């Protein structure tokens, strides 16, 4: 009976036989080896690589942000420098203009001063000349006239009268001449 049953089982390939246990054992061993020695390092490597990539992306982002910030700062510094330069230039121009104006004013004042001085001088000279003329022309004229007339015109009163008349004539002639 038992032998017949085994034979009948052997003939049906859908019914498992002793091979089943070998296969089960072999497969279990294989799963165990894979679980113990192969899968963990693979998982570890994948995790590590993912982590590394994530880290690199994070670094990249940070570097990008920093670069942006640096660029921003650079730009603002450039703008500041431009403003500063413009301001300095403007200031220099104003200062230059102020200096020129001041110099011009000084020069004008100086010129004015010189002119006035010259006028005063001229006036003084003229006065001195007139005075000297008044003094010397009288003497000279009377001396000359005295020589010509042969009469001493040393009389003070006469002398001065003569001179005054002469001068008055001179003045009137000049005035009419000019007119």
């Amino acid at each position, binding site marked *: 009976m038992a032998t017949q049953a*085994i*034979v009948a089982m*052997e*003939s*049906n*390939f*859908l*019914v*498992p*036989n*002793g*091979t*089943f*246990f*070998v*296969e*089960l054992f*072999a*497969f*279990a061993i*294989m*799963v165990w*080896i*894979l*679980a113990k*020695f*192969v*899968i963990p*390092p*693979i*998982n*570890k*490597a*994948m995790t590590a*690589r993912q982590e*590394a990539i994530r880290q690199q992306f994070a670094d990249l982002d940070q570097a990008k942000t920093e670069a942006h910030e640096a660029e921003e700062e650079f730009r603002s510094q450039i703008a500041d420098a431009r403003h500063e330069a413009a301001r300095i230039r403007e200031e220099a121009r104003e200062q230059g203009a102020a200096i020129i104006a001041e110099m011009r004013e000084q020069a004008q004042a100086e010129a004015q001063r010189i002119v006035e001085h010259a006028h005063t001088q001229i006036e003084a000279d003229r006065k001195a000349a007139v005075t000297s003329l008044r003094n010397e022309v009288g003497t000279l004229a009377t001396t000359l006239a005295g020589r010509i007339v042969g009469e001493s015109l040393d009389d003070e009163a006469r002398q001065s009268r003569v001179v005054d008349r002469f001068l008055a004539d001179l003045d009137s002639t000049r005035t009419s001449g000019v007119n």
Partner: protein
Amino acid sequence: MNGLLLPLATTNIEIGKHTTVTVGGMTFNVDTIISTFVAGAIVLILGFWARSALTKKNPSHVPTKIQLLWETIVGEVNKQVEDNLGRVHPFVVPLAVALFFFILIANWLELLPTEINHDLHLLPAPTADTNLTYAMAIMAMVGVWIYGIREKGARGYFRHFIEPFPVLLPLNILEELTKPITLALRLFGNIFAGGIMLALIGLIPFYASWLPNLVWKLFDMFIGGIQAFIFALLTVLYFGMAGAGHGEHEEHEADSHDNTPELAH
């Protein structure tokens, strides 16, 4: 020897035939076991290759190709598990990754021919033997049940069998039993059928068989990938369902069961 014969009169294609050894009253399909070990060894070699690439000092931090392959699969599984379970579970992820890689390699083993245009393959796909598919499905489902009980407590887990109505108890039990069986038989059926197709194509005279052979093997590779993906994905989904209860009524339970994990769907 004990295999079924196809109803093709002149052919001798035997399906479900295995080289067997009987030890202590138990029969062992030697060819399946050998190809299982080959597929498992390939997966482990790929895995340790990636591990060595990972642990090596790599100054440029550029991952190698094998590393990228594993990282893609593990990353996708992590995402699925996190979406369905709410977190990256330390058992579910290796299980799903192992299921995917192992089923994929096992399915593709069948594509290696012994000789051109011969129906025999160098190694039969171990997934074309129900012993392996049952073993993987049982392992996945036992894991699902343990996970469900751990997440919700024994009472909380078994209570969902009588929800939403106690009348549905038989259906719920049936559903829970159907899950491993469908997992196992879906994979088995697809790959087994692929092997039969290769055998049938092998019957075509050699001057004509190269085109269907080529086309079918390409398609079979695609099927192998899809089946590996489906098995792993469904396992993750079953874990998610076990942790969360069925459908939408886990929202009401969230108040009474404070250990209910947050749900992604």
